[in-house]
């Protein structure tokens, strides 16, 4: 079997590169800490670390970033369970029952179950990624300019579902990103657009924008309220759950992981939605649904395996099609391009060895997460004591230096600062940042491929509906774009509770991006 063979080769190659493994371990540990610290999300962690990968070989850099991603999603559960402060939006679901368990004096077992569930959900999702990615990539290899254009439009339509509180504001953010993406050389004729004479702007500096929007903006926000400090409330007893208790959760974990993987594959739906969906399904299947919300171990297991199940699914579309499904994978896409690798089907053709070594490394990352997670729970309290008044200045300094490091350019840092200030005001008034980044990535892909396809068809727009895959993708894109609108219409007709306000999942979704 091709995939298994390649995976074994990849594993062999991986174990000959101790530095890559060490950096993966560093990434996982840092990810857990970042995830656990309230206010710092996996996206922010990946954005800050992005410049560090620049000087590394592709495998080391990408494994470190994957480690931060995986660790970050899991780390959010620690503060959620101990303090009812979700470290990440996905952990908001974990906090419901996790904190109740802490109040009952079962914090240790809740944390242990969260760790094992995260590990199982995440590992399962990486296996799905390994076996599905080459198939999807082979399919996508057949795409020409018109299909690539339709794919980019589909990627852009996700904006409607990651807009959070207000779809209009999400779309404004998205179109602003699209307009920003036209800054630089025009993809067909090479005419410089909106560059104001600055050669630095010939390519949109999207990594500085990303660091500004996701890391600097969050840091500016935490300047608002510098006194908050998290504290460890509970003493931990036993961490590893007894087998007879954990055994009963295995079916639940398998179901939640499956849900997480499917939700992860759907672009636009991330770990937070997976956690809430897994929670609801676990409750529906449970023999004791009345215990949910009062401290049910099954709830913690479901949320964590669902959230981590997302990771492999989200990576699938990013690696094979070049469509980042959410903010974290968008930033990871930045890491790939920084290494000179173009995500998409050709990645599997031209760099198959690297891709499978990376997959083997991702499995190792999850094992590391399990070991580091279980080993560090008792020390976590001290890390959580780190005052914001030291953390925030450090993050800002890292944003500055990290942005500079990409091109040795002060110009980029000013762009980062501008994006950070804009991002601060955007999140203050519920304009989500993810659509901007998604548009910066997908906008040039859409324009370049549209114009190429138009030339290929001698100026005729027929390619939009005569090519079946193009037409199908465009239809799905329109449906995705219309979905929030239809949902709103439907719920206003049925008098549902979400007429004006967001649903739990969608408001949480906004937070993770």
């Amino acid at each position, binding site marked *: 079997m091709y995939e298994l063979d390649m995976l074994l080769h990849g594993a062999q190659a991986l174990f000959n590169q101790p530095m890559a493994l060490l950096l993966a371990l560093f990434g996982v540990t840092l990810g857990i800490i970042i995830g656990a610290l309230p206010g710092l999300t996996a996206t922010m962690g990946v954005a800050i670390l992005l410049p*560090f990968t*620049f*000087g*590394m070989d592709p495998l080391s850099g990408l494994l470190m970033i994957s480690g931060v991603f995986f660790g970050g999603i899991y780390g959010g559960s620690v503060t959620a369970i101990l303090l009812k402060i979700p470290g990440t*939006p996905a952990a908001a679901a974990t906090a419901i029952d996790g904190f109740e368990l802490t109040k009952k004096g079962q914090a240790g077992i809740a944390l242990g179950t969260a760790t094992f569930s995260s590990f199982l959900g995440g590992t399962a999702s990486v296996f799905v990624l390994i076996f599905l990615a080459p198939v999807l990539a082979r399919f996508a290899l057949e795409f020409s300019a018109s299909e690539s254009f339709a794919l980019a439009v589909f990627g852009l339509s996700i904006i409607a579902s990651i807009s959070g*509180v*207000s779809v*209009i504001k999400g*779309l*404004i953010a998205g*179109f*602003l990103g*699209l*307009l920003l993406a*036209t800054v630089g050389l*025009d993809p*067909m*004729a090479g*005419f410089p*657009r*909106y560059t104001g004479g600055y050669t630095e702007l010939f390519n949109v500096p999207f990594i500085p924008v990303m660091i500004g929007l996701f890391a*600097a903006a969050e840091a*500016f*926000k935490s*300047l*608002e*309220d*510098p006194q908050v400090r998290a504290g460890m409330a509970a003493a931990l007893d036993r961490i590893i759950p007894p087998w007879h208790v954990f055994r009963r959760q295995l079916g639940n974990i398998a179901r939640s992981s499956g849900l997480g993987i499917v939700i992860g594959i759907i672009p636009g739906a991330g770990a937070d939605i997976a956690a809430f969906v897994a929670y609801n399904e676990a409750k529906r299947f449970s023999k004791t649904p009345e215990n949910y919300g009062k401290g049910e171990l099954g709830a913690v297991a479901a949320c964590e395996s669902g959230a981590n199940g997302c990771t492999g699914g989200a990576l699938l579309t990013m690696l094979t099609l070049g469509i980042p499904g959410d903010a974290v994978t968008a930033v990871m896409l930045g890491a790939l391009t920084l290494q000179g690798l173009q995500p998409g089907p050709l990645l599997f053709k031209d760099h198959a060895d690297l891709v499978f070594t990376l997959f083997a490394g991702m499995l190792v990352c999850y094992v590391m997460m399990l070991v580091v997670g279980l080993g560090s729970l008792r020390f976590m309290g001290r890390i959580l004591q780190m*005052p*914001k*008044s*030291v953390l925030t*200045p*450090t993050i*800002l*300094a*890292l944003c*500055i*230096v990290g942005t*500079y*490091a990409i091109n040795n350019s*002060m110009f980029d840092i000013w762009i980062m*600062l501008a994006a*950070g*200030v804009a991002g*601060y*005001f955007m999140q203050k*008034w*519920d304009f*989500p940042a993810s659509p901007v980044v998604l548009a910066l990535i997908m906008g040039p892909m859409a324009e370049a491929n549209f114009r190429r396809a*138009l*030339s290929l068809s001698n100026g005729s727009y027929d390619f939009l509906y005569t090519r079946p895959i193009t037409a199908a993708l465009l239809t799905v894109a329109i449906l995705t774009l219309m979905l929030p609108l239809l949902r709103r219409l439907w719920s206003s007709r049925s008098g549902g509770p979400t007429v*004006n*306000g*967001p649903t739990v999942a969608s*408001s949480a979704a*906004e*937070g*993770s*991006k």
Partner: protein
Amino acid sequence: MSHAPAPGGKSGLRPQDRLATLIIAVLVMAVAVAAIVAAGDFPPTMLETDVGPARFPIIFAVALLVLCAILIVNTLRAPAAPPDDPAQAGPRASYGTVAIGIVATAACLYAMEFVGYAVATPVYLFGLMWLMGRRNVIANAVIAAVLTALIYAAFAYALSVPLPVGSLFE
């Protein structure tokens, strides 16, 4: 991300949120209009089958104008929040601190071009820690110096990325 009540949601819109949303919408519209005006100077395409460099920016800018107009109408029509809503009376965020922090960051960048990373960063870190309420001068100075050195080591040695030296020392 903010989890504040949705402007225009059931809780209604506070006057300052309404004003801020309107200001943002008008600013974005100004950007869109400027983009359309600037696109007028783009050269026409030389290929018969191409739409030219101006087509896509103009489409995006027009879409922005339409969306902002919808947002403005929605914002003006949204009901006002009750003035004495106790739920809104949480601890006030200190916007002054944020403003000073942003200005300090800009000052740090400006200074870095002249005095370099090694001088600008510790001063900046020290200032921010002070701004965020840490009043222990010696501890702050030590932390600022250690962090500057750690970041320098990580970039200059581990990643071989040279950090700005500053035009005064070059």
